[in-house]
């Protein structure tokens, strides 16, 4: 695969690689570095790429594994996927609910999910990938993915309902 063909392959993927790295590594700088490194890895393995049914799934898998390695290496608080419980705010949430804050609330709720669940939300709800591709990346079968996604989505909904109805979130 020559440079031109590789760039054609990578260009539509780089944002996806970046977003997934961002989900794992939180920091923009770390995600940008990871994206660079993944692209280089893919370049070095460019001969392999053609052999895969889904070169895209291959690229995303490399990204996922790279990010997991980074987390193991750095073992830094900033870079861990934080399984945090949503904390209550000082003032009643009704006063806060503007569009922007609402997005922050959703973001926090999603970050309180498990790594597996966050991954699935990222790949399905944000990246809009088909189950077949996702199953290659996360090494789960389609049924397992659907079940996990369902659980995650219900959790999100429950937590959001709590916030809207009670004003201050409970754990």
């Amino acid at each position: 695969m020559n440079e031109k063909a590789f760039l054609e392959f990578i260009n539509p993927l780089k944002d996806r690689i970046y977003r997934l790295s961002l989900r794992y590594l939180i920091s923009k700088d770390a995600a940008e570095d990871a994206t660079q490194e993944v692209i280089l890895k893919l370049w070095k393995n460019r001969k392999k790429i053609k052999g895969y049914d889904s070169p895209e799934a291959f690229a995303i898998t490399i990204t996922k594994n790279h990010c997991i390695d980074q987390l193991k290496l750095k073992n830094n608080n900033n870079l861990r996927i934080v399984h945090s419980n949503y904390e209550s705010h000082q003032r009643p949430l009704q006063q806060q609910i503007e569009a922007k804050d609402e997005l922050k609330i959703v973001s926090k709720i999603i970050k309180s999910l498990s790594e597996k669940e966050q991954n699935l939300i990222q790949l399905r709800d944000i990246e809009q990938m088909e189950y077949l591709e996702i199953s290659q990346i996360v090494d789960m079968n389609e049924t397992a993915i659907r079940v996990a996604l369902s659980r995650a989505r219900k959790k999100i909904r429950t937590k959001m309902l709590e916030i809207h109805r009670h004003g201050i979130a409970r754990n």
Partner: protein
Amino acid sequence: MELQEIEILLDKYLAGETSLKEEVRLKEFFKNHPNVPEHLKEYQALFSFFESEQEKTYEGGLYLPKPKPFKRWISIGVAAVFIGTLLIWSPFDNNLPESNSNQQLKIQNTKGLLMMMGNTVKEGRANLNYLEELDTLQAIGKTQISKTKR
């Protein structure tokens, strides 16, 4: 009524049973209808969130090591020196008895050639690194850098 369809889809969505098309339909609906009934407001926020996440893009540069024709010549050079060494040690010379000084000369030559080979490879490698830096600098020149380091 559309709302009814949407509510059916939302149930499927929570059960993990929607297709991508149906999920896109849900997203479009919430995007185009900012004023949804109270009981659907959470979904509004959720799908807006997905939309905002989708809009994040990679702002860094794309650095690729360029193909190095130079590398080829290094390997050919090494191969040539290697073959040359073998020729010197060629068994076909064995008809004449070797004088000691001739053998010494051969050994010296081979050593010399092997050292040259080592140096060529070293130089070659140093040149490669330089080229990589050069390429990186060129790439930086060509692509936009919007990355700011803190």
